[in-house]
């Protein structure tokens, strides 16, 4: 397989490891977009998800909106938005935020939903305020699912940020794939794909550890003696 050996050659070429087109710079860009997106999306989705989960109001809205948003093709939203925002990262960030919201919302909402009603009633009966119930009972117990929401949404954004390289402006690792295809430089395409895949797997691994940590640090379950 010549593509495989060409790809190995691509990785061993030191010019691919420095400068604006080098793997480290592109990787930092990619992670930068991802963190910015997740921060904006979380600022929107987490309070709403916690509110829906805590009050039980507008549940239908949460379910329908996450379902409908999921059917939206990302490339379509991206290209449509970029016709209005022009070349730059605005369209990409807008699309990525839109995509990152549903899993975060679902995680926060489903996490709170999963908390045993008796536990919440017990907290209320010993005189905790609603705010204390939310922050000291519901959120700690829901943490593994909330972290799960962050995991889904981060991986979604890493994948879509790759596609976002189709529009000029955003750099990131997707450039290797899109530019390589345009130039028929297949070793670059394959090398870029490998870097994107490894990044996704590493991030997923980190989230698995975070989820385990969240699971371990939550209060021990109290067995019902009924």
């Amino acid at each position: 397989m010549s593509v495989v050996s060409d790809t190995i050659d691509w990785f061993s070429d030191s010019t691919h490891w420095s400068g604006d087109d080098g793997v480290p710079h592109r990787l930092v860009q990619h992670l930068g977009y991802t963190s910015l997106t997740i921060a904006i999306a979380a600022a929107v989705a987490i309070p709403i998800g916690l509110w829906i989960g805590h009050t039980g109001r507008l549940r239908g809205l949460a379910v329908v909106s996450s379902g409908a948003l999921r059917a939206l093709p990302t490339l379509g939203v991206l290209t449509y938005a970029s016709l209005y925002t022009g070349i730059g990262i605005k369209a990409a960030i807008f699309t990525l935020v839109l995509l990152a919201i549903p899993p975060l919302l679902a995680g926060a909402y489903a996490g709170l939903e999963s908390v045993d009603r008796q536990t919440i009633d017990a907290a209320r009966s010993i005189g905790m305020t609603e705010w204390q119930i939310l922050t000291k009972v519901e959120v700690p117990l829901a943490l593994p699912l909330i972290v799960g929401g962050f995991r889904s949404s981060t991986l979604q954004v890493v994948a879509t940020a790759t596609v976002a390289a189709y529009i000029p402006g955003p750099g990131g690792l997707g450039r290797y794939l899109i530019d390589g295809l345009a130039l028929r430089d297949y070793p670059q395409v394959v090398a870029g794909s490998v870097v994107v895949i490894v990044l996704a797997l590493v991030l997923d691994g980190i989230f698995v550890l975070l989820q385990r940590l969240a699971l371990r640090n939550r209060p021990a379950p109290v067995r019902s003696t009924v």
Partner: protein
Amino acid sequence: MTWLQNNTDKVVDLLLSHLWLSALPIVLGFVIALPIGWYANRHRRIRGVLLSAAGVLYTVPSLAFFLILPSIIGTGFLSPANVVVALTIYAVAIMVRSATDAFASVSPAVLDAATATGFAAAGRAFRVELPLAGPVLVAGLRVVAVSTVSLVSVGALIGVNNLGSLFTEGYRTDNDAEILTGVIGIVILALVFDGLIVLVGRLLMPWATASRTTGTSLRGLARARR
């Protein structure tokens, strides 16, 4: 609207390719995942390994997946086979988890009763387990269908024609109506697949309650990515 009227033939052609490119992975994914899920449910140790493997496969970003496949299975870089194979693997990855949950939801007492009334192993699997696992299987398949229809559009970036081609062409020619046509077409196609699955599910399982399906599809949504 005028753009659509003037380009009806092209849109219909792209719609048909989109239909095939999504139907194939959805059907193949279901057929492949069903026996794997059934088997995984019966063998605890294999279940963990299979579900982690499915999780890892689903983590691979789509565009990178399309472009790494040629080096692995020897297809051309711009071949539609890359899209079909990658999306089938995603479908299997989501569906194996759903199928495992589905078979686990069948009460062991019912299975014992079936054995006691004289069902042989194969008869019991097809005529007792499968119908009872049906509602959860339907919920999983709905998630697979919506995500597959939306992901096919990314194939446009590697030159595989489908409704996503309206995004790339619309972007190049600065035509927002064309992009919007693609977005709406894909959402409609996703809804049609979803409705079809629900309808077939109701016809095959008239006893299944709607509430149960909604609950599991929400959990599926919270879990599914990209």
